[in-house]
Each structure stands twice: as C-alpha cells, then as structure tokens.
C-alpha cells in the first residue's frame, strides 16, 4: 500500500523560497530571509526523510507521482510532470537536500556581510529546486529541466559578484560550455524519441528489457550523446574548462554546486540511463576512458595550482573522473557510493576552505597562508578529516568508495587493469596535492603578516563538523550493502575473477600509494619548503604546462571561439551579409537608379527631340500593326511566340 509521499513538495518548497526571497527579499528583514531560505531545504529534507522512512516501512519502489495535467502533449510527443522515487533518487535526494541544507546553514555565516544576501539565498533555493527536479525526474525531458536549471542557478551564482568581469565571464562560460553538453543531451533525447517513442525512463527500460538482443548500434550513439551531456555537466574532458573558472562564485556555491551536487548530475544521469549504457560496451568503455583520463589529467593540473579553491576544483574534476570510471566499468553503485562520500568530503573541503578564506579576509592564495592550525583549530581538524578522506585512507569515507571503483575497474580485463593503474596514479597525485594544500594552509609558519586570521562563527563550523563526521563515517555502510540497496535501481555489477585476497591486495596498494603521496607532500612542502620550487625549476616546461593548465583554455579559444567569431564577423558579416546579399540589393537598386538616370536623359527638354520620339513612336506603331510579325518571326524558329499577327 503506497501512501502519498508528496514528492512534489521537495522541489516546490525551495522554489517557493526562491520566489519569495527573489521578489521580496530586498525589502524583507535579513532574519526573515534567512528563515525562509533555510526552512525550504529543511522541509524538503524532511519530506525526503519521510520518504526514506516510508520506503523502509515497505513502500514499493520505484514509487512515482505524476501530475494529472501533462506537460507537453503535442502531436506524437507526450511528456508528463512525473517524479520517480527509487533507491537511486533516494540516495541522491538525501545527499542533495542534506548536504544542501548544511551548506545553506553555513552560508548564513559566510555570506552575512554580503550586499546581495537575499539574492544569494534565493539563487541557492532555486538551485535546490532544479537539483531536486533533476533527481526526481521520471523522464529525460523533465530531467533536462533540472539539468538546464541547475546550470542556470550555477550561472547566476558564479556570477554573483557580477561586478567582477572575471565572475561574469566565468558564469557565462559555465553556461555556454554546459550548453555544448546539453546539445548532446538534446540529440540523445531526439534519438530516444525516434527509437523508443518516449522519454520516460521506466518505459525505455521496459522496452529495452523486452528486446534483450538489442545492443550497440543506435544505443551506442544515444549513449555517447548522453555522455556528451554528462561530460558538460560533470566537467569531464573535454568540457571540464568551466569548472575551475566557476570558483569565482562564493565558496558555499562551490561547495554545493561545483562539488557536492550539480557536477555529479552527469554521473547520476548515466546511472539513471544505465539500461542504455549497459547495452553498449563501446559507450561504456568511452565513459571509463573519459573518466580515467579526466581523473589523471585534472590531478596533474591540481598539483601546481596556488589558489586554494582551484586546487579543490581540479580535485573535484579528478574525483568526478573516478565516478565516470566507475560507471564505465558498470560499477554504478560504486560510482554512486563515491558520489555520496565525495559529496561529504568535498563539500567539507570547500566549506573549510571557505572558512579559511573567510578567516583570511578573502585571501585565496596558498602561498600566502600557512600556520593556520592554531588560529582556526576547528577548521583545521574538519579539514584534516576531509583530506584523509579524499586521499583514501581508511577508515575515512573516501577510502571505501574509491577502492570499490578501482576494484571494479581492475576486474574489467586488460583495459580495466590499465584504467585501474591510471586510477592508482591519480590516487597518488590526489594524496600529494591534497596534503600539499593541507601543509601550505595549516602547517608551517604564516606567510602573510598583514592579515589576522580568526576562527569562523558557529553557523559555519557546525556544518563543518557534521560533514566531518560524515566524511569519516560516511563510508562505513560498505559497498556491499550499498550496492545491494541500489541494485534494484542500477543493477548489480558482476566482476569476474574477483576474490577477497585480490581485493585486500589492491586495498593495501592503494593505501600505500596514498601514503606515498602524503610522504612526498610532507617532504616537499613541510620538511624542505624550498624543494617544490627547486623541483619546478628543474622541469620548467612541465611546470609551466601544468601551471597553465595545459593551455587548454587558450587552445579552445584559438581553435573554436576566435575562429568562430572571425568567421562570423568577416565571412558571414562582411562577405555574405554586406558584400553579397547587401551588394545584391544595392546592385538591383543601382540598376534601377541607373535606368532612371538614363531614362531621365530622354527628357532632354528639347522640343524637337520630343517630336522625334513621337515620330518614332508613330513609326513603331505603324510597323507593329502593318508588318505581319508572325510570318516574319516564323522564319526564325526561336520565336514561336504568339505575337500579334494578322
């Protein structure tokens, strides 16, 4: 017996918060704004918990709610507002509303002095709205609503400091790059429509289940299109470029959107449409390769970044790569597991970093920090938990999920082992740059003297603490139980040749690698702080390459953006529009005017000329009337016209 879960409340409450704060926030007292902004996600969280409780109490999943009025119902296309609640969305919802709520609380402290306080919270609520829609969506189009919507919220929040050109630029860049991904998503949807005639996930799944022999072919194309969408949203190669710039936004935004929730939407989407991916080994391997490559690629860049948030951003990209890798090896539950733990520790990392920045009075450069451990103890300890979690030390959360992915990859034949190796290298790098960050920030001596760091208020530290607990214990549920729980929604991956011994071996290896990374960071940034500089000087090309992020932005700029603009401006604008089309119109007009000028000369003003024309006309008329033209023209076979004749 399914009770009514009122799922619609989950997105709608934040939306209400957005509307109220957005329209009236400027005039409302700050406390009221805060109350509204916090209450909305809190109640949503409550509804989610209620749903969780109901599912625990025997609610049959998937459970769905459909708005009685359809959304788009035109011609052959039928799309409803339908929300689906299953294990997958349950996990996502918990993460989104839970972590989201925590970050809201954090923001109250972090943003308290900002001018656009109300604006910030309305955007945050808007984000919650779209994110929950994305998660709950029962069909691809509705998911696309959330998909684009979170992009919008991200755009607005990145550009929160819109007076800064860089912030506005970053927002725009995020939106446009995401749009390129959306292009893939859209085409994917068209293909779904063309091949399934529906966009509903359950119907697609049912149709696929009904034809078990259907693999590859168009499904590969669909999967690749969806993957393009996912790479855009989840900042994977080659569309990752927007995420580092997105750090222009306020830090809570980075935590919520660009670490915990929105950027994981790609992973979620792949998991949601896993039925299609499962039918296309090629697409899956592409997902895995993209994930692994991104993980390594971003990690290398992360090694040398000096902006605390940028390091975290590249780490996010890298971690998302892991999740893709997990998806690519059909370890969806592992990927989602990592998604969840990552949400905890990455949110924590960002929030702690935010706390640091807050304490440092807005300073984000690692090189100017140091020795903050004493000044900001709570921040330090929570951050430490997160660093250990991301580096993959047991028993922190990250350890369990990352290893689940690596283990699953290892089991996927030769390619899988290669991917596993990449993953391990990435883990090394991850540990290195995370501890680099850790050392540079908290340990050693303070490297700037004109700021006076202070610990953040409890509204910020509270969420930090909770997230720290989650970062520590979030993984204890274990992949086995987690996978079993998710299995109805995403299926259960089957690795061949797996064994407990192998698993333990791999775990040990991974932990060793993480330790190695820590050790290297310790050597370079703690014991011999000048070592890093020496290393950089030793490899100037490599260092420069990394520091400049492989010049990818520049390459994109010179291969896509500038040529497109130049093509538009010169070829289309000048040549086609002005010269050819404009010229054509001008030419026609010119011919008419020239004709006019010539015919005006006819009007010479001379009476005798006029008379001559009259005589000419008379002669012409006489000739026309009296010469039997038809017989004359008949001698020219060209003219078989019906000219006057007689």
């Amino acid at each position: 017996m399914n009770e009514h879960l009122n799922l619609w409340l989950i997105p709608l409450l934040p939306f209400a918060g957005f509307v109220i704060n957005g329209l009236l926030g400027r005039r409302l007292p700050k406390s009221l704004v805060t109350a509204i902004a916090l209450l909305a996600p809190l109640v949503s969280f409550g509804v989610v918990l209620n749903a969780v409780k109901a599912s625990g109490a025997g609610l049959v999943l998937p459970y769905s709610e459909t708005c009685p009025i359809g959304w788009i119902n035109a011609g052959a296309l039928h799309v409803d507002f339908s929300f689906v609640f299953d294990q997958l969305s349950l996990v996502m919802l918990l993460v989104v509303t839970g972590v989201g709520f925590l970050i809201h609380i954090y923001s109250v402290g972090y943003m308290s002095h900002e001018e656009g306080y109300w604006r910030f919270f309305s955007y945050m609520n808007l984000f919650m709205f779209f994110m929950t829609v994305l998660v709950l969506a029962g069909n691809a189009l509705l998911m696309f609503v959330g998909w684009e919507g979170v992009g919008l919220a991200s755009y607005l929040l990145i550009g929160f400091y819109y007076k800064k050109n860089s912030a506005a630029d970053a927002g725009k860049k995020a939106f446009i790059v995401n749009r390129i991904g959306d292009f893939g998503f859209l085409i994917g949807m068209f293909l779904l429509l063309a091949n399934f005639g529906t966009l509903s996930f359950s119907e697609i799944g049912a149709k696929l289940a009904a034809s078990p022999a259907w693999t590859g072919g168009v499904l590969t194309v669909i999967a690749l299109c969806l993957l393009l969408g996912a790479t855009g949203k989840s900042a994977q190669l080659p569309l990752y470029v927007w995420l580092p710039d997105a750090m222009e936004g306020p830090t809570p935004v980075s935590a919520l959107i660009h670490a915990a929730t929105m950027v994981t939407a790609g992973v979620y989407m792949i998991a949601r449409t896993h039925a299609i991916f499962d039918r296309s080994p090629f697409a899956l391997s592409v997902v895995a390769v993209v994930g692994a490559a991104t993980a390594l690629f971003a990690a290398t860049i992360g090694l040398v970044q000096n902006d605390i948030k940028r390091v975290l951003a590249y780490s996010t990209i890298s971690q998302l790569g892991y999740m893709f890798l997990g998806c690519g090896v059909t370890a969806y539950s592992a990927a989602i597991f990592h998604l969840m733990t990552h949400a905890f520790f990455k949110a924590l990392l960002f929030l702690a970093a935010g706390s640091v920045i807050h304490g440092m009075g807005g300073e984000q450069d690692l090189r100017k920090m140091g020795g903050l451990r004493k000044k900001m103890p709570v921040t330090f300890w929570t951050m430490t938990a997160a660093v250990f979690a991301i580096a993959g030390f047991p028993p922190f959360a990250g350890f369990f999920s990352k290893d689940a992915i690596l283990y699953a990859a290892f089991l996927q034949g030769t390619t899988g082992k290669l991917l596993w190796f990449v993953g391990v290298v990435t883990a090394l790098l991850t540990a290195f740059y995370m501890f680099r960050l850790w050392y540079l920030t908290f340990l050693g001596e303070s490297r700037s003297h004109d700021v006076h760091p202070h610990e953040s208020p409890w509204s910020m530290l509270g969420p930090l603490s909770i997230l720290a607990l989650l970062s520590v214990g979030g993984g204890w549920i274990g992949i086995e139980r987690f996978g079993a729980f998710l299995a109805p929604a995403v299926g259960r991956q089957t690795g061949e040749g797996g064994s407990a011994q192998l698993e333990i071996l791999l775990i040990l290896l991974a932990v060793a690698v993480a330790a190695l990374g820590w050790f290297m960071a310790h050597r370079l940034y703690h014991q011999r702080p000048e070592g890093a500089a020496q290393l950089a000087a030793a490899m100037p090309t490599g260092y420069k390459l990394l520091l400049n992020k492989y010049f990818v932005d520049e390459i994109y700029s010179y291969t896509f953006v500038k040529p497109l603009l130049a093509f538009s401006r010169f070829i289309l604008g000048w040549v086609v529009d002005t010269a050819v089309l404009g010229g054509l119109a001008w030419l026609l007009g010119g011919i008419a005017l020239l004709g006019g000028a010539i015919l005006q000369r006819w009007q010479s003003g001379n009476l005798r000329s006029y008379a001559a024309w009259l005589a000419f006309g008379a002669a012409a008329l006489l000739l026309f009337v009296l010469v039997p033209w038809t017989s004359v023209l008949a001698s020219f076979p060209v003219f078989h016209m019906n000219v006057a004749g007689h």
Partner: protein
Amino acid sequence: MNSVPDIYRILPEVILTLTGVLVMLVDASLPPGLPRRSLGWVAATGTAVAYLASIWQLSLPVGTGFYATVETSPFTVFFHALICGIVLVALLLSLDSLPEDSHHQGEYYALVVFGAVGMCLLTAAIELLVVFIALEISSIATYVLAGYRKETARGPEAAIKYFLLGSFATAFLLYGVALIFGATGTTQIYDIANLAPSAQNHSLVLAALALMLVGILFKVSAVPFHVWTPDVYEGAPSPVVALMSTAPKAAAFALLLRVVYEMFPTLHSVWAPLLSIVAVLSMTVGNLAALRQQNVKRMLAYSSIAHAGYLLAAFAGMGNAGIAAASFYVAAYAAMNVGIFAVVTVVSGYDENLPMIQDFRGLIYRSPLLGGLLIFFLASLVGIPFTGGFFGKFYSFSAAVGGGAVWLAIIGLLNSGLAAAYYLRLAFAAAQRPSDETGLTRSYEPRAGVAVIAALLFAVAATLILGIVPGDVLHAAQTGAHTLQPPPPTATEVIGIATTQPRVP
C-alpha cells in the same frame, strides 16, 4: 424610334457651356477691380449641376442623338460623372489657390468649364468628327491653362511644348481618321465597326488604327508619347495639373476604349499586344525615371506615365472585364491624383517655386492634416489596400490575368513595387522630423479655405470609397462596359452616318 429629345443626350455639355458663358458674362459685367472669386463658385455650381445632369442621364434609354453623333449610355454617364467630378474638385481647388487679384480669373474658370465640355463630349461622341472637335476643345483649353502663369519662365514653355506636340499628335490622329474614312467611307464609329472588318483595304484600316493610337496615346501620356508630360506638369500651375493630369486623361481613355473595343473589336489580336507592350514600357519608363526625381511635380508626372501603363494593362483583358477594369482604374487614378495635386497645390501654392521633395520635409509636423493626406494619397498611388489605387491596380491586373497576360500582371506589380520607392521618398520626407538646418525657408503658408477643404474631402472620400466599397463604382463601370459594343449591322446603316435606331444594351 428614339423619343428622347436630342438635347437631353448632351444635357451636361449644354449646362457646362451655359455655365461657361455665364461666367464670361458675369466677368464682363463685374466692374474691374472687384474680386472675381465668386466666378469660381458660379463655375463650380454649374459643374455640380452638370454632374447631377449626367447622373440623371442614366434614366434615359440607351441611345444616340443628333443623327448618331452622340450617345448616352452608362458608359458615357460614367465618364461624364467622373469628368464633372474632377472638374468640380479642380475648381474648388483653384478657388482657394488662385491669386485673388490677377490672372484673369474669369477666363480661367471659363476655360476650365469649356474644357470640360470638350472632355465630356469626347466621351459621348460616336462620330469621329465630333471626337476631333471635342478633343480640340479640351486640348486648347488645357494648352492655355498649362501656360497660365505666363509671367514665369516655365509657364509659357509648358504651354508651347504641350501645344506644339499636342497639335503634332493630333495631326497623326487626324491622318488616321482620314485613312479610316478612306477605308470605310464613313466616320461614324458604329458604321466603321461594321464596315472595317470587311473593308477592301485592310491595311488602310490597320494604318488608321496605328495613327489614331498615336494621337490617343499621346493624350494619355503613354510611352513613347509621354515626353511632354514631365515638362508640362512642371511648368503648369498645380491646380491646373490636378485637372489636366486627370480629366483629359479620363476622356482620352474613354476615347481609347471606344476606339479599340467599339470601333476595332475585330482587331483585338493587333491592338491588345500592342497596348500591352506600351503598358509595360509606360510603367517601366515612368517608374524608373521618377526614381531619381527631386522635383515633386515632375515626379508625379512620371508617376502618371506609369499609371497610364497600369491602366493600359487592363486592355489585355477580355472584353467587358478589360473595359470595366480600365474605367474603374481611370476613376481611381483620377481620385488619388487630383488629391495628391491638391495637396501639392496647398503646400506649395499657385505661385510656387518648384516644389522639391525637401520642401515637403516635416510636412506632417507643420500640418498634420496635409501631411496625412499626402501620405494617404501616396499610399493610394502605391496601391495599398483599402484605397482606390489598390482596387484600380487589382482590377486592371485581374483583367490582364483573365486575358491570359500573366506576364503583364507580374511586370506591372513588380513595377508598382519599384514605384513605391519614390512615392515613399516623398511620403517619408513628409513624415521625417524636420531638422533645424533644413529650415523651411521655401515654405508657403497653406491657405486652407472652405473650398480647398471641400476639394480635399471629395478626393479623400472618393479614394476611400473606391478602396473600401468599390462595388457601386465597379458596377457602374461594368454596366458601362456592356454598352460599349457596336450594335449589330442593319441593312439601313451599312453605309451612311445616321441611325436613329435605339441601341440595345
């Protein structure tokens, strides 16, 4: 037998003649120095009465009078009413724009009214002798009126150009009449119609057709007989241009219809393509030449050449459709052209310097009414729907398409698009905000008297009526078209000029 007294057949002409004489008499009896504006009212009243009389003629049975030299039929009534209407508007226009104290006002009004006699008679005549005399009456009146500002350099030049070329063309027309007389032995149009097909010397008939067309096409200013038009319109006073660009043209078109459809219906395969070619030439040449024109009157002259072309396109139509379309177009053209020249007259005055386009700049800001009317009439000339010009073009090209000349309609409508370019130049000059430096130095303070307002109202009303409810006028034109066919030959009228048989419509 025809029981209608002959005099009824020419009642409008008689009334107009008496009006003219009355104007002369009053003019002569008024002591010199007294304002002679009242003469205009006399003339206008007389014209109005003539208008009513011509409408009254509808109640007469269709038939001929004066030994088959004139006829009364819906066709003639249509053109009589049209011409009287135009003349009335032109008179009202002149009333307020003619300088009060000079210019032989008496002669002016008398000339206008007598000219109207000629034009009316021209449309009623079914005897080439009467046609010739009527044509001369209307021509001489317009020659003189064209040169009425004789103290200016341009006035007499306009008059002499018009006069010499007009006489030149008339000589051709007359030669054509001589040849048709030579071919058939008669100059009565019905007789010609009956005799010409069987004439022994068919080439004589054809040559006659060509030569007569020279004279008529000159009057309607069709290319290549249009050359006089711009110069004469430029030199003539604006109110006169309002008259001469419409009324004599209407009469000439009536004559053309009579000649081709009634006199030479069997030569349709000759004159229809001929007139089509002339139509294309006229509209193209007129429009192209007007494109670069800065002088408004010259521009409108070229425009009237183009309109002659549109009108001639209707002649490609079959029988009644063509006649009706052409008649309707004449009416529509007259309404809007009188209107636009009325506006030009009011804006630039009788003693105008040359009205240039830049002089119209910001007219709508100076005088919203005049500016609006200018734009309205220009819109009608362009052929915007719900104005007379639209339906004129519509029927004309409709007739052409009905007659199978789709190409003609396409060229014609493309031409009307081309024409929009220069009409709009004027319209938009009027609509443009006047900038200070252009300074309306040449501006003339419009004298908007009762008469001129009445004239404008008439023109606007006519253009609108023709554009929104063209049914009645079109019906009249169609009824007229039905009566414009030669009666079947009867034994008694094979040779001879007289027939007293009432004609069956």
